[in-house]
């Protein structure tokens, strides 16, 4: 996956649709990231933190029992085993290093499931920065445990009550806050979305997932897998995963929740600083997504995914909440791994497609973007 054009576009999607007050900050961030990413010292610090602090590389785990049941050869890329329990830490360590390099002393973030908020709170503590996290009130109730974790880590968590009180509104609130604090604050956006350079920068900070997995595949299999699957909320774990395989022959599949399928059911539009596919009504009002998973409950999607879909390089599919819950149970009971609800979307699609769209015997790499501990209370409430 290449760099965006100078206006921050991947094909027709991307750009920088932000209030004038934020344009200089985005431009400054773009320059800072470009310089840092070309600086071997910066990269070495990033790599060192990923390995000695965050626990990378993560394993590529074979799944003998589930593979046999599904009739495919399944390997899981284990982002659930990183420090803080999801891929979000990869991006946050990169952005915190960059914020430090830019002389910022505060991090502000939005969060849905709370995983990005926890990761940001963690990095802020590690770098000695202040941290403010906006979280929809509804999500705070769904992910109480993560709210407590963020507060333990010293972050301030601000409930967002506007709109649907979920991730979309937390992004709005974080952007409003950033407009007023841009002088000393870095907006640590949690996915491959928002205005340029975020979709590109976050993908670069997440490509470690795909690069590692691709190298592990070559070692274990001597070749690329046939199919690569990841869940898609904003799309960061999928973008990072796809980055390692896009130049090869593997089929790339992004899995969206049925109630938040921005690529499947969205229309092109502009929200949160980017042109992308967005769930919206015919007038252009953004619709609320509805998903069991707070981390995927988002009506938009990163612009590079909209582009990959448009050019046909990746396929985007959707699964229902019930399929997702069944997939959590399936992986837990066959492999002893408790997946978060988000990557359980990817598993759910594989469970449905194995032996059909995914032929028998196919080799599959699936990114297990996070661990399920945060979701246990929610599953208990559902009576699972």
């Amino acid at each position, binding site marked *: 996956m290449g760099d965006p054009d100078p206006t921050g576009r991947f094909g027709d999607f991307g750009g920088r649709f932000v209030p004038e007050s934020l344009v200089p900050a985005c431009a400054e961030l773009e320059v800072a990231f470009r310089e840092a990413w070309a600086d071997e010292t910066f990269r070495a610090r990033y790599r060192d933190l990923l390995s000695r602090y965050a626990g990378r590389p993560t394993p590529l785990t074979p799944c003998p029992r589930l593979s046999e049941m599904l009739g495919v050869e399944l390997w899981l890329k284990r982002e659930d085993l990183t420090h803080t329990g999801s891929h979000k830490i990869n991006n946050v360590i990169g952005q915190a290093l960059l914020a430090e390099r830019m002389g910022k002393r505060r991090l502000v973030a939005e969060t849905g499931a709370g995983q990005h908020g926890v990761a940001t709170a963690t990095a802020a503590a590690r770098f000695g920065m202040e941290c403010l996290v906006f979280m929809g009130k509804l999500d705070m109730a769904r992910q109480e445990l993560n709210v407590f974790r963020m507060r333990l880590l010293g972050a301030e968590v601000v409930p967002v009550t506007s709109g649907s009180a979920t991730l979309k509104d937390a992004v709005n609130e974080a*952007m*409003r806050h950033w407009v007023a604090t841009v002088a000393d604050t870095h907006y640590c956006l949690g996915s491959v979305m928002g205005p340029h350079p975020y979709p590109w920068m976050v993908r670069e900070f997440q490509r470690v997932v795909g690069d590692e997995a691709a190298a592990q595949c070559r070692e274990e299999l001597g070749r690329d897998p046939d199919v690569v699957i990841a869940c898609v909320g904003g799309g960061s774990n999928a973008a990072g995963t796809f980055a390692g395989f896009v130049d090869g022959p593997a089929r790339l599949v992004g899995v969206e929740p049925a109630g938040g399928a921005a690529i499947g059911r969205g*229309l092109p539009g502009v929200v949160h600083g980017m042109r992308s596919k967005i769930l919206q009504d015919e007038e252009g009002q953004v619709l609320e997504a509805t998903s069991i998973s707070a981390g995927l409950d988002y009506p938009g999607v990163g612009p590079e995914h909209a582009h990959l879909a448009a050019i046909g390089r990746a396929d985007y599919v959707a699964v229902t909440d019930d399929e997702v819950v069944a997939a959590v149970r399936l992986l837990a009971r066959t492999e002893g791994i408790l997946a978060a609800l988000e990557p359980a979307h990817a598993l759910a699609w594989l469970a449905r497609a194995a032996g059909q769209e995914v032929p028998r015997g196919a080799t599959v790499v699936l990114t297990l973007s996070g661990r399920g501990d945060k979701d246990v209370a929610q599953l208990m409430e559902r009576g699972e």
Partner: protein
Amino acid sequence: MSTAGVAVGESRRLEPALRRQRALGRKLLVPYVTGGMLTDWTTVLAALATAGADAIEVGIPFSDPIMDGPVIQEASDRALAAGTTPQLVLAALRHAGGEIGVPLAVMTYYNLVDRAGLDRFAADLAASGVGGAILPDLPLDESAPWRRAAAAAGVDQVLLAAPTTGEERLAAICSAASGFLYAVGLMGVTGERADLATSSLDVATRASRYTDLPVLVGVGISTPDQARRVCAVADGVVVGSALVRRLLEGGGPEAAAALVSEFREALDAG
């Protein structure tokens, strides 16, 4: 369009009207009201014109107004909950037609324009008697397609400048804008502030060096005295949250008009 449409076409233009008023030595007052926030919102517009507004900014409510603080968010939410759509706002303006008596500009977010189609939206504005558009999430770099569509329909394209806008960029914004130059007075979203931000004086002063368009300061102009003080360097002000709050609190057209009169008097007294 009938001949009445042509007559509306003549009087709806924003920039000539603002320039005329400024040439009379008058400071420009542009109050903001969210379309659809009250059932009788177009009556409010007429009252504001009578009370001394030089033009009126009409918000078309959007689900995700990232440049707006709590007061205007609340007005947008109420309007949307009441079923307000862009087409309903424009239809109401078309019906109110000649009764308002001053030029109108709409303020909205780019997705509504994009969804309608740029040419169609621009034509709808013109046909509804609207003279200009303010799109706070459409910065200069992304604005060329909209500016072309708006210009073709005879709709002015107000652009925003911020305290953080550098000199070269400010010059480019000033030369691409029409109608007026919207100088964002402070780093933040719309909402009332106790004090006048010094950044508002700075941004207006800097902008005036690059353009002879009317330079209006908006965001954080909450009291007549703040308006008077910023107009030492600016050509006028946009007053939003202070007015919208009164309307949300139940003050009808009279209360809104009374507030605009206070601003008018302060500006006229200089």
